[in-house]
Structure formats: C-alpha cells, structure tokens
C-alpha cells in the first residue's frame, strides 16, 4: 500500500516538473503563463477554503487580502517608494498585513452569520479597493488608479526569476521559473491546509461550522477561533497577492474587483467546500476554462462556417453554462468531502 502511493507520488511529481516544458512545446509559452496564474488562484482558493469551508464563514470580499499582499510587495519592491526589499521579507510582510486585515474584518462581523456576513464582507472588499484607488492624495501612497509599475520581478538574491536561465543546455524561460516557485508554494499551502484541517484547531472550526452554540458550550472560544480562521485565510490571500505583484510587474486597483472575489468563491464551492483536492481542482478548472474557451470563435467558424455570436460573448456564455451544468450535476461540488457528501445524501 505504502509502496503504491509512493510510486504515484513520484510519478505525479515528475509529471508536474515536466508539465511546463510539455506545455511550452505543444501550446506555447502563453499557456505556461496561464497555468502560473491558475496556481495563484489555487492558493487563493485554498485560503478562502479555510474561512468558508472549514469555519463556515461566508466571505465575499476575499480579494481584498489578495490586494493587500500585492500592494505590500509592490510598495516594497518598486520605484514608487524606491525600495527593493528581498522577497523573504516582502512576501511574509504581505501575508502578515493581510492577516491583520483579516482580523480587522473579522472583529466587527463576529455576531453575523450567513447572508448578513456575506454583505459586510462584500462591503469590506470594496472599501479596500476604493482606498487603493484613492490613496494618491494628499500623500501619494498607492499611485491611485494608475497603479504601481516597474515592480521588481521575484528574485532570490541575484537570481531573478524574471529572466531566462540556461541550465545544462536547457532554456528555462521566466514563466517556467515562476511556475516552479508557485508550485512549491501551492504544495506547501496544501500540506498546511491538510494539517490544519486534521488538527485540534481544525476540529474546533468544524464544530463552530456545525453548531456555534454547542461549540461555545463545549468551551470553544468562538471569537478567537473565528478570528484565527479569518487571519489564516487572509494570509494565504496576502501571499498569493505578493507573488502576483512580483510576477505581473504591475498592480492597479482594477485587478481586485468583486468579480474576482466571486470567482474565488465559485472555485471553492464548485470544487467542493472543505475538501482540499476538490478546491484545487475547482480553482484549476475555473482559472483555465475561460482561457481554453478563447478558441470558441474558431469552433464556431468551423461548425457553422461563419461567426454568428461575437467570440468573446460566446466564451462567457459557454463559461456560464458550464458553471450552471456543473452545479446542477454535482451540487456538493465536483469532488466533495465525505462530510458534505453525507449531508447531501441525507437530505
């Protein structure tokens, strides 16, 4: 048994290591970039899963933490403030500040549940975005709607991931470097999520999700535990934001709209709330599907011989239909956790 799972681990690991080269060969560099962004979404979805899936707190403003992480990295690594800090400070700083904002959001919403909580978190997400948009005066902090440009690419000392490298005669372009970094971070995120879920803390979160009154009566400090869930989830978001800023080289408030929050929530719900593998699958699928659907126009041309519907509209139409179909066919998510499956079968 152990030998078999070990072999799968090695095979899966090898496949993940070779994936960017295969993608580059078959589909071009653009697709490696798409997968890079998908990995950032996976990290976001894992973080939101802690809040929504584990602790059962609906959060519609999650992208705010992504924004905080992105701006911290951007400010610490760009001409905006003239700072160029190493990433082992900039990334944790972003995660930490995001965690603080998580507590800041959590504190006033402790008594709220369900729909009400969703509305307040939605407002919080918008507040952060509007702040970023307007903090260019009286003192210019975020450079307002223009955003922050010329952000240093992710780098370890003098080794920059933003350049092409040659290793043993192999060309390793920037998108592939970044892929490996993101992959490592995502795997760590999955391991940490898994450990949290199976820990004393994770069990307490599950208890709060199932019945808050009973949980409190068993001696659980529901306030601190909820704040911890918000902070943990937010730190994943902040980390993902820092990586995003370093990868993209440019951040502006436009990247952090409500639509992004909704998308991340969709990934969690569609994949399977509270189930790591499901959430990863959901995030990958929803991040990649819109890109894959860019070919919709070509299919249309091929099938009908002419363009009936504008390709970009057709793409969104198909994406929406795919979401509805998936939710109808698999209401507990594509790959639900055991508890979730039981719940749906019980009803």
């Amino acid at each position: 048994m152990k030998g078999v799972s070990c072999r799968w681990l090695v095979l899966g690991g090898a496949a993940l290591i070779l994936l960017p080269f295969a993608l580059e060969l078959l589909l071009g560099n653009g697709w490696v970039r798409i997968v890079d962004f998908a990995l950032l979404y996976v990290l976001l979805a894992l973080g939101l899963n802690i809040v929504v899936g584990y602790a059962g707190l609906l959060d519609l403003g999650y992208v705010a933490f992504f924004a905080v992480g992105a701006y911290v990295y951007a400010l610490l690594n760009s001409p905006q403030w003239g700072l160029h800090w190493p990433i082992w400070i900039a990334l944790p700083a972003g995660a930490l500040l995001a965690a603080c904002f998580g507590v800041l959001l959590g504190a006033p919403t402790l008594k709220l549940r369900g729909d009400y909580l969703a509305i307040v978190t939605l407002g919080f997400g918008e507040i952060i975005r509007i702040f970023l948009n307007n903090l260019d005066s009286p003192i210019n902090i975020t450079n307002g709607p223009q955003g922050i440009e010329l952000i240093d690419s992710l780098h370890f000392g003098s080794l920059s991931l933003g350049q092409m490298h040659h290793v043993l005669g192999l060309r390793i372009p920037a998108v592939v470097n970044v892929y490996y970094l993101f992959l490592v971070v995502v795997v760590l995120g999955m391991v940490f999520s898994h450990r949290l879920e199976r820990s004393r803390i994770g069990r307490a979160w599950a208890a709060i999700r199932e019945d808050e009154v009973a949980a409190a009566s068993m001696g659980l400090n529901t306030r601190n535990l909820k704040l911890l869930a918000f902070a943990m989830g937010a730190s994943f978001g902040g980390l993902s934001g820092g990586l995003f800023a370093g990868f993209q080289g440019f951040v502006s408030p436009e990247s952090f709209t409500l639509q992004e929050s909704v998308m991340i929530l969709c990934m969690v719900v569609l994949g399977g709330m509270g189930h790591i593998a499901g959430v990863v699958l959901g995030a990958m699928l929803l991040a990649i599907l819109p890109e894959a659907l860019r070919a919709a126009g070509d299919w249309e041309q091929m099938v009908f011989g002419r363009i009936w519907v504008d390709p970009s509209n057709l793409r969104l139409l198909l994406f929406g239909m795919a979401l509805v179909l998936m939710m109808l066919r698999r209401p507990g998510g594509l790959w639900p956790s055991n508890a979730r499956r039981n719940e749906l079968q019980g009803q």
Partner: protein
Amino acid sequence: MDEYPLLVAERIGKHFGGLRALQGVSLSLGEKTITGLIGPNGAGKTTFFNVLTGIYKPDEGTVHFAGAPLPSGKPHRVAERGIARTFQNIRLFSQMTVLENVMVGRHLRTRAGLLGALFKTAGTLREEQAIRDRAFQLLEFVGIAAHATRVAATLSYGDQRRLEIARALATDPRLLALDEPAAGMNAMERKRLGGLLEQIRNMGTAVLLIEHDVRWVMGLCDRITVLDHGERIAEGTPREVQTDLRVIEAYLGTSRSVTA
C-alpha cells in the same frame, strides 16, 4: 448537602420583553449529588439552564460556582469553569464522526496551537493521541464505542443523547447539566441512563437535570427543585416534593380548574 455547595444561584430573574420567564429563582446544589429540575411545560427550566451555562445573561441575581461568581453571557468561560451541558433538542456536530464530537470536548483541556498543527511537532502529536484515547474511553463509558467512526447524525436517538453526555464529560466538568436527557427513551433505556448518571455522580461529578418523567426523576435524584410560571414553588428531597400541595396543584391544576 452538608458540604459547602458547588453551585449557588440566587434570585435569578430573566424576562424577554414583557414575558417574565424567571423570577427570583434560587437553587443550590452540592458535589456528588443528582439534582432534578422539574415543572410543567413553559415553567422556565430551559431558560434557567441557559442562564446557568452563560447563554443568557440574567436580568437579576447572581450565580456562584465553586466559590466564585460565574461569568454571564460567556458560555465558553462557563465550560472552562467546569459546567458542561447537553441540549433539549440534541445539538451534536452532526456531520462529524462520533469520536470527533467527543474530541471537540477535549479542546478546552488541551493546548496545541497553530504552529504545532502546521509543523506537526512531537508534542502536538502526543497530545492528539491523548485526546483520541480519552475520547474513546468516554465513548466506552457511555456504551457507544462501537459506533466511534460513524457520522453522528446517523446514530439512533438514544445514542445521540448518550454521545452528547460523552462530549460534555470530555470537558472534565464538575457539574453536568442535562436538559431532558431521557426524552424519547423507552423504560429500558431510561433505566440504563439512570445507572449511568449515578455512576457519574459517584465518580465525583454533580448532575443537574431537567426532566418531565416525574416518577423516573423521583427515583434518581437526591434533591428536586420545582418551577412553575418562572418561579420556584418547591425544593427538597423527592419525598418532600411529592407531598407538596403547590406541586400537586401545578401538575394537576387547582380543584377549581379541575371542576371547571
């Protein structure tokens, strides 16, 4: 009751809007006792429980537990002080396994934090094993260890009630407060539950229980308090209470209302 009392609730009052749910209710109980709280429907028994366990803040009165005032409106602090409870309409963590439910009860008496969980330190693993062992032991004690890996919601009604007791015991309480633990049980199950509660008392945990089945309570409890319309109408040994005129009146109605 010669020893100094474990719990002293004095002149508890609680109202919801215009409705007086409790008025000047006092109750004290000692260690190693089983105390019954009885009364007709709507007498205020569950409200009293909710005040006692910190779910409601009383409008009047104080509660002292083990010699110190009990924090009000903070259920988790009450549990920490040593009062654990069950609920009238069973409130299990229904999608978690039977064992996990009891393990949650150990949360209060264990320490492992975030870093321990993330890095799986030796101390955390050891504590986790201890939590698991203790939880399993408690399941054996209440007699449902065979169902440890089942999802709690799939247990029979009687077993769910016993799981709630195991979960409450996992917090190492000095007082176990049970809201209608025998509801929905047949005579056989009641008898077994009575035995279990006597065992719990003899091991040193006081028991306070709300119950409707007067005969069962009379046989089980050391002392009984009777509530009616939010007020205490009697207190004493089962024998004293049984012959109290006001109690008979409350349960059977006054002679006037019987004839009416």
